[in-house]
């Protein structure tokens, strides 16, 4: 690992003690983030109040809030959320375990890389959701079907970016290690993995973005729980409050996963091993 980590950690800075002003500034910043949403909710409320819409068309923000509080307190939301999170989690794990080795194997050879590139683009062009009807014939209306669609969507960017990352590693790094007598496994752990890691994480982040959307779409059609089922199921009974509440949860949850989990990993990897990226 030390072979490629040329970048040095920045010198430790004294941790600034939050003063009254700093705290106020931080509060101001969080208000600033919320401000445009407050405006939006106000517009929504005004339209709803002025238009006198039936409940099947538009409900007030208050109503959505109340419904969400009720559903959360009864544990309904937790169940839908956990179903979705479980599937995206398993799909991510499968895609990494299967996709990264394929990416390495293909990336090591330029003919293989070229041959797979077009095929992967084609697969990406046929979205996972288009295969859904066929996969439903195979696995029925089950979580396995949803999982298959999400893995299909998630694995392509992971393979693709692992391949690109591997191709970008200067060849003499591998040659140097081999001439020092390193075995193939050492080559993977000490050259390929750290060298391609920033690119792999980029692929992971893209894949999770695509995969999350495919998950919601698949859940709408498979109807076996999950957030997609929550909002699509609410449509048949005309519960607009559930639909809008579900959309807010879907957006918030995705942003939480992306900003709190995936982006920090990406920044960390790029800071640590990003030296290999030109």
């Amino acid at each position, binding site marked *: 690992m030390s072979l490629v980590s040329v970048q040095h950690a920045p010198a430790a800075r004294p941790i600034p003690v939050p003063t009254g002003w700093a705290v106020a500034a931080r509060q101001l910043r969080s208000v600033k983030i919320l401000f445009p949403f407050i405006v939006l909710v106000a517009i929504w409320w005004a339209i709803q109040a002025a238009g006198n819409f039936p409940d099947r068309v538009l409900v007030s923000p208050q109503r959505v809030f109340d419904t969400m509080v009720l559903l959360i307190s009864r544990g309904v939301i937790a169940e839908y959320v956990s179903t979705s999170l479980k599937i995206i989690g398993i799909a991510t794990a499968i895609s990494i375990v299967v996709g990264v080795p394929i990416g390495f194997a293909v990336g090591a050879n330029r003919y293989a890389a070229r*041959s797979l590139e077009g095929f992967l683009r084609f697969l990406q062009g046929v979205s996972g959701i288009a295969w859904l*009807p066929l996969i439903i014939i195979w696995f029925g209306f089950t979580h396995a079907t949803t999982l298959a669609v999400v893995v299909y969507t998630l694995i392509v960017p992971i393979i693709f970016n692992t391949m690109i990352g591997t191709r970008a590693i200067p060849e003499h790094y591998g040659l140097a290690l081999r001439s020092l007598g390193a075995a193939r496994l050492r080559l993977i752990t000490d050259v390929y993995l750290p060298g391609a890691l920033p690119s792999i994480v980029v692929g992971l982040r893209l894949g999770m973005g695509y995969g999350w959307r495919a998950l919601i779409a698949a859940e709408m059609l498979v109807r076996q729980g999950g957030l997609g089922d929550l909002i699509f199921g609410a449509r048949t009974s005309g519960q607009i409050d559930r639909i809008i509440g579900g959309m807010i949860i879907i957006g918030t949850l*995705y942003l939480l996963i992306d900003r709190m989990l995936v982006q920090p990993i990406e920044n960390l990897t790029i800071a640590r091993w990003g030296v290999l990226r030109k």
Partner: protein
Amino acid sequence: MSVQAAPIATTSTARRALGRLAWTLVPAAPFVIVTLIWIMATGILNPSKETLPPVTDVLASIKELALSGQLATNVVASLYRLLLGSILGIVTGLIGGVIVGLNRKLAESLNPVVVFFNAISGIVWLPLMITWLGIGNALAVFLIWNTVFFIVFQNAALGVQLVPEVYEQGVRALGGGRWQTMRSVILPGALPYILTGIRTGLGFGWRALIAAELVGAATGLGTMIFDAAEYHRSDIIVAGCLIIGVIAIVMDRWLLLPIERRTVRRWGLVADTEKE
């Protein structure tokens, strides 16, 4: 020596030609391999036609769909929606992106909303929009617009922000007005980003469209697949998926990528100076 050199030269050119041939043919390899596995799987495992239709059935159904005119109807319906939604998405995204890109304060204050609505762009709106717009073209066009808009918007804003201010000031110093600066500096400078946004947006839009058509339309390739599933016609499903993939590739590789490449070569200068 020259006698010996000649055959070596021919073998090396022959080998090089062979290498070049392999290089051009190699992208077809995975398609050939998958087709062979498919043929072998149907031959050896002998699955029911619902589970895995034979290659010949799929080809036959493509031919049948093409001859009956059904394929053309559905492809036209899908492409029409894609075109309409994309044009709306590109125009609104471009206008919004340029305005926001020019105004840093506005960009900062709008950013949280853009990030949030981007996170739920596209298919997440389907249930709400079915209740508001019903099933049909308007629904699909809205979903495509929603998908394309955010990608074009973000790329246009980024592109405009990255145009070096020196160029802008140069035109200003020579007496150029606001409109002139916009036309001769900002728009061409941001063009590579804008085109990348349009290309990516259309790719996403196409995928969102197919998902929307699975439930929210009466015609189109997505509907064709979904209807076929009801009669367990796997051959039509696979045929539809292949056609969807081919259209995506043709659109991206032969239409949008060449446009993007030409523009980047023409206007890419800005990106180069930016690095310095």
